[in-house]
């Protein structure tokens, strides 16, 4: 991964500084895959805090543990050691049903779009509104509004097969954002997008961060989006080796 432009960033250690107001609070997290002789530890004593409205980008070489940490924060894996508090909920020792409930409050953006081919763009987005209290017409309006914001207003009734890779990825992003979650976890969300679409996605995430005080934790190798980060967290060999706040000049 290329380093962000040094003249635009000021590096400052902030790990553990946020305290109780954090949207995400990671403390002493270790994680291993496998058992007995095949056991392999991938995360080592990690600490991280994510503040409301903050966009943090996580970088690091492949196999450094970024995705494992992201899935632990997203309540997609059971905790082994340490503590992670997400949106005020401790994830350790939680029954699976509680983790499912917590996940409903998180927006997930995956590297692959994972859209249902049978559903239109609008319906693919509405799938995420299953647990909202909105009326059906409001769901449709909300889904179409976010698709329009992502430049897909003219594609709401299209099925994924009829759309480009970038358009599909934007639908997946719309699906994550439509519930206006307080925490968004994204894995390379802009990798498949052109310059303009990538900029639009980041602009939308930024708008959500400002308007709703939503926090974004984003794994990326995309230099085009790194410059929009409030913080850059770097993992190497399962350890957060740097956690820097970016102050814009």
């Amino acid at each position, binding site marked *: 991964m290329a380093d962000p432009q040094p003249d635009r960033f000021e590096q400052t250690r902030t790990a553990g500084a946020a305290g109780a107001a954090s949207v995400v609070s990671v403390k002493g997290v270790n994680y291993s895959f496998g058992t007995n002789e095949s056991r392999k530890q991938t995360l080592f004593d990690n600490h991280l805090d994510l503040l409301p409205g903050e966009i943090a980008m996580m970088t690091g070489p492949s196999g450094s543990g970024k995705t494992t940490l992201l899935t632990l924060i997203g309540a997609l894996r059971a905790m082994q050691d340490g503590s992670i508090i997400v949106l005020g909920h401790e994830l350790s020792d939680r029954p699976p049903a509680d983790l499912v409930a917590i*996940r409903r409050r998180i927006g997930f953006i995956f590297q692959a779009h994972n859209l249902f081919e049978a559903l239109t763009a609008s319906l693919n987005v509405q799938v995420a509104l299953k647990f909202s209290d909105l009326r059906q017409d409001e769901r449709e309006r909300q889904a179409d509004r976010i698709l329009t914001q992502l430049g897909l207003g003219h594609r709401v009734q299209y099925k994924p097969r009829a759309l480009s890779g970038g358009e599909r990825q934007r639908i997946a992003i719309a699906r994550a954002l439509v519930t206006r979650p307080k925490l968004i976890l994204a894995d390379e969300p802009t990798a498949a997008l052109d310059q303009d679409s990538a900029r639009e996605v980041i602009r939308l995430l930024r708008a959500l961060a400002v308007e709703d005080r939503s926090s974004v934790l984003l794994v990326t190798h995309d230099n085009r989006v790194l410059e929009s980060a409030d913080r850059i967290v770097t993992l190497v060999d399962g350890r957060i080796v740097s956690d820097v706040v970016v102050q814009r000049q």
Partner: protein
Amino acid sequence: MTRGVPLAWLNLTHNLKQTGLSVAGIAFAVLLMFMETGFRNAMFDSQLLLINRLDADIFLISRAKSTLMFQQPFARHRLEQARAAPDVQWAEPIYVEHDAALWKNASDGSLHDIRAVAFEPERCVFIDVEICRQATRLTVLDNVLFDRQSKEFFGPRTAGTLTELSTRTVRIVGTFALGTDFTHDGSVIMSADTFFHVFPDRRVAERSPGRVELGAIKLVPGGSPQHAAARLRQLLPPDVEVLTKQEYRDKENAFLDASTPIGYVFNLGTIMGFFVGAIICYQILFTDITNQLPQFATLRAIGYSDRTVALIVLQQAVALSAISFVPGVIASRILYALIASLTGLPLEMSLLRGAWVLCLTTSMCAISGAIAVRKALALAPADLY
């Protein structure tokens, strides 16, 4: 249904070609089940054809008689005793010959087994107006009515045809519609006098000591068959069995079910159809889910419980069974009509029988769906990253 998004239905129907193939597969299983249950029911229904056409509320049969197919007469004066019972309007004898009745094809002279049924034409014991209207013609000795739904090999059956029944010359004076069953290819109805004229051995065996194959008892209007049957059981000695019409139907069905392998064979065929359908349905769902594993994992990642995802798969399975049932019914009805016209068997699709196969179809797909759910939950949401 996913609230607001009919995911199961759209998953099932978005690819019309694929949907068509899936529906054809399940419809084939529906057809199999309908054919097997149809043949089984036809077997039972056909054995009851004669009983159903008799205008009786209660039947008397010999205690030793296991089924209408086997001859086992009882003493005729039991009917006279029955006539004395309250609520009994009339009690009439029915004579049936299965074994000695040979019909000669009037065209080619070939001989064929036939069922000969006889009654006293002064009192029409049949429900069919067509038979009763022609009953007076049977008072003439050697006149008979021929079942026009009998197999073709019996030859001409028009009124006026002269032929032989067990070497006695008889004249067809009219026809009626009864139908064939698994043991009888045709039937002929005549008076008791003609019956004993054609089958003189039966005269010796039955008329002299007074023995009869079947007793048909009609109650006065409003009479309760159950109550009347109970009274007759008290009144008559145990050498005869008193049965209401439904009890007699049940007895015949029970005999066929327990004493012949036919019911078992067709039931097995239905089960085979069920499993063939279940396998087809599972294969369809499995392929569809395998193609959408990441999508199902995504649903779970964004907060759908495993139960909700399972429900989507089950809805898809049940929807598949529902839309496949319609072409299955249509194809079955066409085949029923074709087979009925070729064989004369009473292949009927009643609402209850249709509902039974619908129930089997739904269960078949629901079981397949329940197994396929495991596949939908196979990919952990964490593996999406």
